[in-house]
């Protein structure tokens, strides 16, 4: 069984042939049976019958793990006995407070930073002829995984002591300013969190800019024209016409980036591994689950993340729907 589950051709065969055949057979047999039943009952049952597969899939890959995680959060490290609220008590005390504080910084600075830059990109690029080329450059980092991007930026932030050749791009440029000393960007508290957030912004800017660019293009041209005829300057046009029209897209970007900020892991893991006061709750969850093998604590963190993310997700989904209706 293990050999089959680790064989790529076997998995492709299962995914591409076996599962579709089974689903096809199930639906075929079901339809035949429904035809035999006929009448009102068949009409009532049919939609639920067709939903069996997706609902089953949802139950297996979403509901069951979620329920299991919530239960584990109230059990001990090995999941053998009940631990009450101990794991949640731990999640909101001691060193976890500093970690939650870091997540708060991410939660505020990262979405706002991304949004600000994305708005600038979307609005200004809309006015130039080489918009596609410029947008390609902005979107390009999204083609790079967060882990790979983090390695690139770790090298850019690299620090060598004063007097040594600066192999990190940022310090090489920084030390061109007379009288400056190289900075340990990733090791200096406070600065390092912002340096990490910038990597996140760099990676996410492309998608945010695309969403906002589409919204900017949807602003009615006649409104902009009318505002200009009334004597409004570019800033006034942006503030009074463009911004109110892209409000929905702005909300989508903010909520999406907030969810991203809550579960930020790759950048921290690769660049500092949570050292130097940069740890975040997702990184700590990874440590608790795989290093400490403390299932209870890891699950408690996961539940906290879920609870915090749910309202943001609801706003996000509602906004998406509203945008679609428009």
């Amino acid at each position, binding site marked *: 069984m293990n050999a089959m589950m*680790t064989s790529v051709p076997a998995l492709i065969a299962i995914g591409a042939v076996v599962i579709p055949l089974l689903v096809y057979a199930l639906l075929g047999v079901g339809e035949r049976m429904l035809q035999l039943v006929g009448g009102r009952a068949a009409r009532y049952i049919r939609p639920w019958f067709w939903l069996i597969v997706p609902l089953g899939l949802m139950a297996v890959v979403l509901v069951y793990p979620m329920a299991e995680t919530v239960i584990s959060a109230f059990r001990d*490290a090995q999941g053998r006995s009940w631990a009450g609220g101990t794991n949640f008590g731990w999640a909101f005390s001691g060193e976890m407070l500093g970690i939650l504080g870091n997540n708060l910084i991410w939660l505020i600075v990262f979405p706002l930073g991304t949004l600000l830059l994305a708005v600038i990109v979307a609005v200004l690029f809309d006015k130039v*002829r080489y918009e596609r080329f410029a947008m390609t450059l902005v979107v390009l980092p999204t083609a790079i995984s967060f882990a790979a991007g983090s390695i690139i930026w770790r090298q850019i932030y690299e620090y060598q*002591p004063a007097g040594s050749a600066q192999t990190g791009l940022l310090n090489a440029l920084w030390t061109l300013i007379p009288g400056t000393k190289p900075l340990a960007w990733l090791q200096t508290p406070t600065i390092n969190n912002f340096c990490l957030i910038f990597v996140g912004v760099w990676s996410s800017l492309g998608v945010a800019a695309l969403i906002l660019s589409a919204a900017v293009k949807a602003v009615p041209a006649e409104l902009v024209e009318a505002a200009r005829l009334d004597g409004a300057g570019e800033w006034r046009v942006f503030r009074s016409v463009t911004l109110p029209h892209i409000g929905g897209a702005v909300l989508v970007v903010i909520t999406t980036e907030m969810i991203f900020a809550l579960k930020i892991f790759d950048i921290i893991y690769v660049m500092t591994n949570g*050292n130097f006061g940069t740890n975040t709750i997702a990184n700590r969850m990874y440590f608790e689950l795989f*290093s400490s*093998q403390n299932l209870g604590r890891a699950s408690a963190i996961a539940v906290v993340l879920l609870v915090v993310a749910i309202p943001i997700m609801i706003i996000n989904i509602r906004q998406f729907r509203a945008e679609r209706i428009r």
Partner: protein
Amino acid sequence: MGPSLPRVRRTPRTTPKPPKTARTRKTRQTRKITAALALSLAAALSVAGCASEQQAAGTGGNGGNGGGVTFDPKLVAAAEAKAKEIMGNQKLSGSLSIMGDNSGSEAALLQSFYQPFTQATGVKVNYTGSGDNLNVVQSRVAAGNPPDLVTTAPGVMHQYAQTHTLLNLSSFMSDELNQNFTPSVNATASIGNAVYGVYQGFNNMELWYNPQTYTGPKAGASWQDVQNWTAQQGKAGKTAWCNAQGGGTSNGYPGELFIEALFAKKYGAALTEQWGEGKLPWTSPQVKDAFQMFGAIAANDSYVNGGVQGSLSQDTGTGSDGLVASPPTCQAVVWGSWTGGLISGSAKGVTPGQNLASMQIPASNPQYATTETYSSEVTYAFKDSPETRAFLQYIASDEAQTLLASANHWPVSDKNVPASTYTDPNLQNIAKTYFGPDIQLAAGPALLSKTAVVTGAAKGVVSYLENPSSLDTVLQGIQDLQDGK
């Protein structure tokens, strides 16, 4: 209500298509350039992806070449013959999955090292190397899908032996193990009285220096001499040490090994082992003393290259290059036997033996001058099959160990591999010194502890260097991990 507006009828477009203007031509040109750029970038990303995939899989070489190392064809032929001899009349087939923490060129080197086995037996060896090996293996084990073989520290092997049935090597290859490895080496790879793991490389901790610039105490000196010399250099405005701790996901791990070495040379192998096994708490006065001995050097801005913050920032791959820099930025480094290979690989003008050498770390207690810590990993099997048995016999054979030693990357622990196999004088010296009968090997927490303690201790070293006054809290935190709190 006003009058209704007349309906606007859409009329077919009658205006002729506008002629190509300079602007439309320019737009097309821009599109073409953008498309070409996007295609080139996509191609570059694909090529990079393929290359990194190949690197990750460790298929960087064929035949006798891997990781920048060309094996002697005679040694390759001998290893292949040995694999055939091990196979005997058995019919072996399929593939073996191995996970370890050597990636990049080191993974390619290992894959080449396994190649003679594949040639002889037809069994494909799929090696996956990752810097985060412990956690990756842990996730596979937790999912009930462990790889066939794993390379980790012996402590992690002990951890898995409690929950899984590992392959007992003494049950079928005890003769080879006893003939090829010293009892102390086999003891560190044992659980109870049976050997479960085979070492591929074997790295001790040494004091590395540049003979042309080093002014510090030589072999036979005490650690106090080293500390006095360090202080003298500091007063003269020279940083005596390079102490790079920034290893990405394993930040602080070099310091953890440094502290263990100091501990072993003050308190001996027995107490070091007790510490590793969790019998001596991290909050004990001895462990605290070892941290403070380390801190007396590493937490002092005047003693380490770049100051404390500099040492925490420097990458471990290049952080020891200051020994051979011109002018040198430090004179001494405490790290493993791989240090020579790292410096030679990243710095220019390195001539092992002339401007780069190593010696045993001076002891605080003369009684433990020959007590040596090491940082090595054993390969062991979750799966018992003729293929895994043959593979483990192959890597434990003199022929395979000689082949690996000839790569000049790591020393090997096979006592029958002559020191002359290495062309690097430093590795020759290490092989002669550390595998001799006088040496008492000491296994500490880095080797014997569970994953949480090893990673927690590395983080603890970073926290201690950032704030030396937090030592008690740091040690208590590591002890909590040991206790599973």
